[in-house]
């Protein structure tokens, strides 16, 4: 089962994990990304490309499901405005055994960072700035090719 969501409200990790655990898997692994409390960031605005974002996340989830024979994949990415400490992204994989679930999670978050059309804008006391893409993210994504 593949589940892709783009909520503007906070991500309910407990509910997402419970749904995955109910599917009869032997292993569920997950990654949660949070808005960092650093650099004077007071809020984060997440812009995305409606339509294309959903398609990119679905394609990513399907690729992970096929590559690791997953029983279920969940990808949730928050959009809109959020505060430091809040969850921005959640990916999870359910598999028969732990290695597939853990590897699939690393793949999902690495590839999401380069393959899905999201843009972060940080709000600070001095004003707002668009976050620059990082070369280390490209390297992390390429190791799965």
């Amino acid at each position, binding site marked *: 089962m593949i589940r892709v969501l783009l909520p503007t409200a906070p991500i309910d990790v407990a509910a997402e994990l419970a749904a995955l655990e109910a599917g009869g898997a032997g292993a569920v692994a997950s990654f949660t990304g949070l808005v960092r409390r650093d650099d004077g960031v007071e809020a984060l605005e*997440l812009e995305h*490309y409606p339509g*294309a974002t959903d398609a990119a996340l679905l394609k990513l989830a399907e690729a992970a499901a096929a590559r690791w024979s997953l029983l279920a994949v969940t990808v949730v990415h928050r959009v809109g405005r959020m505060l430091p400490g809040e969850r921005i992204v959640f990916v999870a994989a359910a598999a028969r055994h732990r290695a597939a679930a853990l590897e699939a999670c690393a793949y999902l978050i690495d590839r999401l960072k380069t393959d899905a*059309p999201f*843009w972060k*804008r940080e709000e600070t006391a001095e004003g707002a700035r*668009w976050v*620059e893409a990082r070369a280390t993210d490209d390297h992390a994504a390429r190791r799965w090719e």
Partner: protein
Amino acid sequence: MELLYFAWVRERMGRASERIAPPPEVVTVADLIAWLRARGAVEDAALADASRLRAAVDQVFVGLDAPIAGAREIALFPPVTGG
């Protein structure tokens, strides 16, 4: 065709979308960027650094050398920063 802009490309262009009808000699995304830049000072400044621009044709990520013939929707945006 419909042209969409995101993030700082949208801010610098001063609009999120527009309908355009480029001439036949505009073959690739790079040609389209050059054609847009020639339309005015705002466009010229916003799209000046092609190394910081990415594109999607009909919602699929492509290189700037990709053809645009027959496209319904083209998006121009900075490198993505989600996750």
